[in-house]
């Protein structure tokens, strides 16, 4: 090709329109959301959690039964077109009970993760960052709370407070952050000596800021894993609390209670275990996949 002489005329070179996606400078959250969307398992988990939440809120109004309606002659019926999940030992519609149970169990899951993410993360974060004597004292308090038998607290709480959902939250709040505190503290001990923390400290950032902006975000992996794993634990602790008498009063039943009732009749009526257990397991899988997805998308180090 032989260029024409005019081709060499000087000319302002028009800036080509930049593609919008990066040019506008996507925020941290937009970026995280984009990564999350690309993680199919995490997305599936999120969708399932939204669906089950929706079902828990609206479902009982459409099932046509109440969680307490009994029909003794119809007890222990296997799933059918009338009772999709079958009936329990008092002839109550299992689907309705599972949907109601979702309300309790999901709120307990949310409460447990909230406690973990606030009390546990902050406590562990402060202990790990402060180090030395403060760390020692704070972690010994954790040891003490670990050491005192949980069952004793719970019986006492039950006697003092009686049954009720709020009291479960209280019982969880007392001890449910201990594991998280230990894990966060361990992480922070490990990362606080790294350069970027020292740098932040040299620029005069306050300890609170260093903790919130540098240390905790860099511990996001273990934090999210501990949280997602704390949810099922809390849901089953609730079943145990119900056993002691601190839980929700019968005939209302959580997933944990439904499952522990179902497990007893596993051989004769396996469906009575199957549905609550499936509900729990799929929800837990969803939380875990979502947790993994969040972990991957929120971790500042995973961004390139």
């Amino acid at each position: 090709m032989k260029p024409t002489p005019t081709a060499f005329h000087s000319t302002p070179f028009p800036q080509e329109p930049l593609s919008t996606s990066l040019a506008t400078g996507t925020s941290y959250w937009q970026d995280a959301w984009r990564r999350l969307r690309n993680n199919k398992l995490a997305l599936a988990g999120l969708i399932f959690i939204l669906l089950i939440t929706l079902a828990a809120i609206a479902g009982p109004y459409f099932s046509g039964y109440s969680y307490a309606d009994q029909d003794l002659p119809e007890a222990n019926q296997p799933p059918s077109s009338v009772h999709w999940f079958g009936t329990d030992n008092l002839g109550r519609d299992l689907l309705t009970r599972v949907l109601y149970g979702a309300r309790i169990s999901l709120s307990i899951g949310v409460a447990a993760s909230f406690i973990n993410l606030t009390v546990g993360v902050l406590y562990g974060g402060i202990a790990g960052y402060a180090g030395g004597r403060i760390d020692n004292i704070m972690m010994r308090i954790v040891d003490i709370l670990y050491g005192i038998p949980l069952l004793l607290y719970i019986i006492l709480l039950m006697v003092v407070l009686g049954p009720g959902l709020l009291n479960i939250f209280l019982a969880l709040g007392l001890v449910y952050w201990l594991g998280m505190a230990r894990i966060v503290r361990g992480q922070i001990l490990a990362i606080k000596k790294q350069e970027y923390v020292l740098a932040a400290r040299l620029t005069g950032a306050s300890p609170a800021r260093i903790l919130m902006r540098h240390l905790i975000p860099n511990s996001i992996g273990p934090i999210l894993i501990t949280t997602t794993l704390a949810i099922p634990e809390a849901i089953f602790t609730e079943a145990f609390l119900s056993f002691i008498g601190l839980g929700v009063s019968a005939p209302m039943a959580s997933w944990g209670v439904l499952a522990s009732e179902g497990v007893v009749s596993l051989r004769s009526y396996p469906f009575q275990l199957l549905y609550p257990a499936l509900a729990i397991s799929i929800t837990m899988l969803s939380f875990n996949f979502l947790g993994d997805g969040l972990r991957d998308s929120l971790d500042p180090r995973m961004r390139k």
Partner: protein
Amino acid sequence: MIHYLINRLASMLLVLFVIVTATFLLMHAIPGGPFTTEKNLPEAIQKNMEERYHLNDPLWKQYADYLAHAATGDLGPSFKYENRSVNDLIRESFPVSAELGAIAIFWAVCLGIPAGIIAAVYHNRWPDYIAMFLTTIGISVPGFILAALLIFVFALQLDWLPAALWEGPSSTVLPALALTGLPTAFIARLTRSGMMEVLNQDYIRTARAKGLSQYTILTRHALKNALIPVVTYLGPLIAGILTGSFVIETIFAIPGLGRHFVTSIYNRDYTVILGITIFYSALLVTLNLLVDIAYVLLDPRIKLSEGKDD
């Protein structure tokens, strides 16, 4: 370090003391005593029994007597199990729980860490999905349901293994499996998360540039860094799992410490409650100390005994 250890040991004793005191108060605060029974006892008998077990002493005296005894290592006689000492009870049942727990932890570590590594190396590809799916099942299906299903399949349907009891190696398989699900999942996920962070670090690129094999890179350069959260978790986990799980021990009729502990609370068997609490707490604080020491071994940058450099 020596100074730090001495400090820690002193604070461990303090922790134990606080735990014992709190447990003592709690256990006397809750309704019902060791001799609360469905059929109310005649007063004379109630009196005789209280006298025999010194329950009619003022609370502070009972507490002081207990501490004095416990300090000598004698955890006292059980209130419920006639003529049996708490020391005996722990001596008999702890080895059972510990054996079962050790098997479960061994499996959890052997399965969880490799699964976590594989998942991290093949991040967001099929091996990752499969490893995470399998280990997540371990946590999504709670122990008591898992136990029931295992019994149903392996004991009742296939008739390969005993459904319960603690009689020989075959009886350890199902309870250990039921017990190992949760820690396996936890360890796998923490390992995966830690590995993924570490594998993005510059020093891993350096290691690759050095021509090291994938295996050396993973085991020597990555794993140690990735294990801090796992180790943190292992401390309380080991203490908890070695001292036994009430649920699993009950379902499988295993004569372990976990069953004793919960039963003792239901029975209000005061000395047993306190004795096992002391035992468990001592184990826990010791393991937590080991965890903190392990931090230093894993990561030389961590200092525990600091305080002046801040």
